């Protein structure tokens, strides 16, 4: 918050926006509507983070079926670009960089897309700050830029509700965003289906070395009809 000059409301707006998506996801653990005032009055866990900034731990599982393009039932999702990176700052930085910035240009070039082109974005969200950090590294702009895009409905962000609303199912959390992106690309997202969903970005982040995650990954998926 200090580095980007953000008030608590900036994290809150992200959490509230994801909760709106979660209301449309029957598998989410938090589905009831959430107001910004309710977010701001949630119990503090560790100043400045409140209960609703921290992923709820749930039991659950994720799975995807991987097969050849010919055998996949259409519409399917295919991997257009993939990148993984170790954060080389070795726990000596602020934790507000993930390493994705180093691989983002090659990722977008390989995908033949730009950040503004993707229809659905699933960002690993253990805390709101990590959503902002990864999106900044991947070229989506500063936190205020991201919030503008969410408000204007130009950015369909964590349409399952994300882990902050759907829950973090232990080690299965790493696939949460993949499953949501594949559902959207295959047209299986029910009430929260994004119209004409042709492309999706998915990220992963984690393995806390001492103070923050040591590695990150990102993939661009495309619909195959």
């Amino acid at each position, binding site marked *: 918050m200090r580095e980007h000059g953000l008030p608590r409301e900036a994290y809150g707006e992200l959490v509230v926006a994801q909760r709106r998506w979660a209301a449309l996801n029957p598998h989410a653990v938090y589905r009831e509507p959430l107001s910004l005032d309710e977010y701001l009055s949630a*119990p503090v866990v*560790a100043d400045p983070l409140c209960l609703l900034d921290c992923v709820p731990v749930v039991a659950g599982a994720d799975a995807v079926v991987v097969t050849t393009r010919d055998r996949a039932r259409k519409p399917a999702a295919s991997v257009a670009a993939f990148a993984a990176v170790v954060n080389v700052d070795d726990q000596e930085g602020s934790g507000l960089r993930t390493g994705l910035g180093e691989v983002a240009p090659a990722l977008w070039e390989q995908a033949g897309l730009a950040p503004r082109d993707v229809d659905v974005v699933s960002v690993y969200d253990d805390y709101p700050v990590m959503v902002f950090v990864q999106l900044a590294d991947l070229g989506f702009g500063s936190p205020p830029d991201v919030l503008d895009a969410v408000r204007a409905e130009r950015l369909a962000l964590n349409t399952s509700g994300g882990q902050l609303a759907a829950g973090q199912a232990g080690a299965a959390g790493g696939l949460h965003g993949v499953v949501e992106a594949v559902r959207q690309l295959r047209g299986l997202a029910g009430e929260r289906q994004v119209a004409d969903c042709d492309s999706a970005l998915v990220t992963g982040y984690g393995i806390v070395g001492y*103070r923050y995650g040591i590695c990150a990954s990102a993939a661009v998926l495309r619909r195959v009809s």
Partner: protein
Amino acid sequence: VSGVPVRVCARCGHGVFPERSLCPRCGAGEWALREIARGRVEEETTVLRAPVPLDGPVRLALVRLADGPLVIARLERDAARGDEVEVTYQDGVPIVRI
């Protein structure tokens, strides 16, 4: 009073905490042990809902050890960003007590 046990790389002098197998800077695997008790507070927070077995609010600080790495320390006294502090080490936990 003992300080935080920092492993200092025998080849390049880089200090790490907690201990590592290989030096992240030069890749060597030989270490010398150095206890560092002085540091400066870079961040601090209060965890109001601490995990078991800790009871009640727990204050934590990110401390830059003198000529050493950043460590997460428990605050048992008032300390603010920028304060010079002495860090002790007990049961695997850096603690700012004095």
